[in-house]
């Protein structure tokens, strides 16, 4: 797309958008969400938490319960059907038209807008080139691999230069290696086009890699909104912490500025608490000699993983932790080790 300036994204506001389906299922409690122009926002959560429903409300495929409002750039579009909203959408099943070739699929959005055949094919060809699938232009849809279909679906959604692109688990149907590759490609594309993107996934690695901000959802409500770093290192609650990667927790109490647990104690900020738990990520802890820190554990298992080792530790009260160690660290199962925690990277809840 060289002939026009990159499309700029729309700002999206959801206010009080809930959704109860006719059969009585409450898929979404009324929620508010502000998305700034050009931002990539990821909806993350377990199956059935309402991600797709939220996306479909933004798209206009589903209308929110009474009282809910969807605004694009401050304009109320709640009553507009999807075909009037100028959004691009990539479906989990791709929804490519089997009766059209690849290039006809990509040109379809321009066709319904009345763009002349020659021009729309030229523009579709440009998008195919941008996605590096121009050699597939004349193929039929059933002659494409999963990854190729995914690219065509994205190209088709982008060809109309939408102000918002909505992606519903676009990579879930693909194998792991291809997923990583396409994720990086999509990330680059979304940033280059400066388009507002809403990306649904239940894969935390995908969410952390792609999102400017992540919305973690649970049971039809928002559990936390924040940058990937916020979500990862400062999860709002247990649910977010355990959903976004492996989290260690130590149970204990805070007394006189120290967190005391079965494995020992360390200095923390904050008032005294009779019960507290301290949560941290495996890679934020550093192993040291048994007497070199206030916390002492026994090595229970060691898994060599190439670049790193993954170490399972046991505390005196039976609590278990997982931490990482350098590949060349010498660790013997049954030995005692100490653990140093970075105060900036654990949370006390």
């Amino acid at each position: 797309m060289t002939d026009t300036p990159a499309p700029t994204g729309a700002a999206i506001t959801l206010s009080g958008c809930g959704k109860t389906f006719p059969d009585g299922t409450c898929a979404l409690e009324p929620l508010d969400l502000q998305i700034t122009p050009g931002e990539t926002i990821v909806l993350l959560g377990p199956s059935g938490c309402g991600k797709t429903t939220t996306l479909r409300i933004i798209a206009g495929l589903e209308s929110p319960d009474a009282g809910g409002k969807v605004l694009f750039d401050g304009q109320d579009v709640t009553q507009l059907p999807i075909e009037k909203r100028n959004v691009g959408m990539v479906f989990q099943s791709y929804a490519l038209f089997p009766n059209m070739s690849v290039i006809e699929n990509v040109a379809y959005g321009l066709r319904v807008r009345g763009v002349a055949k020659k021009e729309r094919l030229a523009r579709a060809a440009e998008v195919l080139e941008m996605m590096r699938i121009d050699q597939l232009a004349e193929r039929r849809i059933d002659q494409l691999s999963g990854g190729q279909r995914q690219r065509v679906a994205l190209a088709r959604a982008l060809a109309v230069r939408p102000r918002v692109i909505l992606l519903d688990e676009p990579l879930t149907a693909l194998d792991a290696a291809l997923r990583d590759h396409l994720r990086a490609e999509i990330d680059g594309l979304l940033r280059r086009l400066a388009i507002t993107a809403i990306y649904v996934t239940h894969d935390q690695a995908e969410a952390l890699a792609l999102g400017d901000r992540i919305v973690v959802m649970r049971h039809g409500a928002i559990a936390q909104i924040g940058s990937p770093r916020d979500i990862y290192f400062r999860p709002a609650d247990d649910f977010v912490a355990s959903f976004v990667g492996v989290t260690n927790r130590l149970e204990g109490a805070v007394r006189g500025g120290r967190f005391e647990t079965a494995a020992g104690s360390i200095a923390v900020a904050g008032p005294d608490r009779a019960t507290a738990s301290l949560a941290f990520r495996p890679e934020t802890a550093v192993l040291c000699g048994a007497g070199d820190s206030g916390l002492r554990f026994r090595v229970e298992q060691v898994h060599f993983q190439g670049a790193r080792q993954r170490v399972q530790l046991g505390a005196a009260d039976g609590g278990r932790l997982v931490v990482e160690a350098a590949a060349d660290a010498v660790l013997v199962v049954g030995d005692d080790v100490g653990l140093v925690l970075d105060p900036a990277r654990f949370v006390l809840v």
Partner: protein
Amino acid sequence: MQRSPLVFALQLLVTLLAAAFLVVPAAQSILAGLTVNYFQGLRSGLTLDWVAQVWGLYAPTILRSILLALATLGVTLLIGVPAGWALARKPGRLSRLVEEVVTLPVAIPGLALALGLILAYGGIREFRASVAFILVGHVLYTLPFMLRSVMAVLAAIDVRTLEEGAASLGASPWQRFIQVVVPNARPGILAGSLMVVTLSIGEFNLTWMLHTPLTQTLPVGLADSYASMRLEIASAYTLVFFLMIVPLLIAIQIMGGEKRAKKRK
């Protein structure tokens, strides 16, 4: 699995006997329409005279049947395709009910259906005397076949998601229907169309009740010729009927075969 030659020979024999049982009467009937005098048998020689006579006597009937079948096709397409689409989009209790109601005429004996039509609309003289009256009966009877055929293919291609895809690209409901739904439902529409034409051309029960001497159709004419003409003419009529219906049946077979082959792939 190794099949023993004896079992195979037995199976072949049974199949051939069954086929012969069905084919012999048909062949005899066709032959009767081509012999000069059936009672003297083939010795009397072969002729196309009877076929020509049938054409002379029943050409308008045959033509009427073809036009009727095409009109039935037109109406079932106009109603069946959009209705199948609407039902496929909103699968629920209501759409199942509609489907059941529309399918009812297949289960009800044609005679009862015809009687119902005569009781309800027979009083309107112009209508009762016209071919349109038979057309209504044929549409009632064939519509479920079109509807089911269309719905089956729409369910198989997940038409709702395809339509949402088209809508997200800005297509209006009409554009979606014409550019996405219909082209992708084509195999179902074609199969349904062949079915409708074949059923309409061969329909007797209903039509026999609904027709007037001036609105006979092919099968009704057949009955008429059996009742009132000499055997050779009646047989020649059967031959004409075969010539019209067999290509349609073969086409249906081929279509079905193609669909199955595609599914296997």
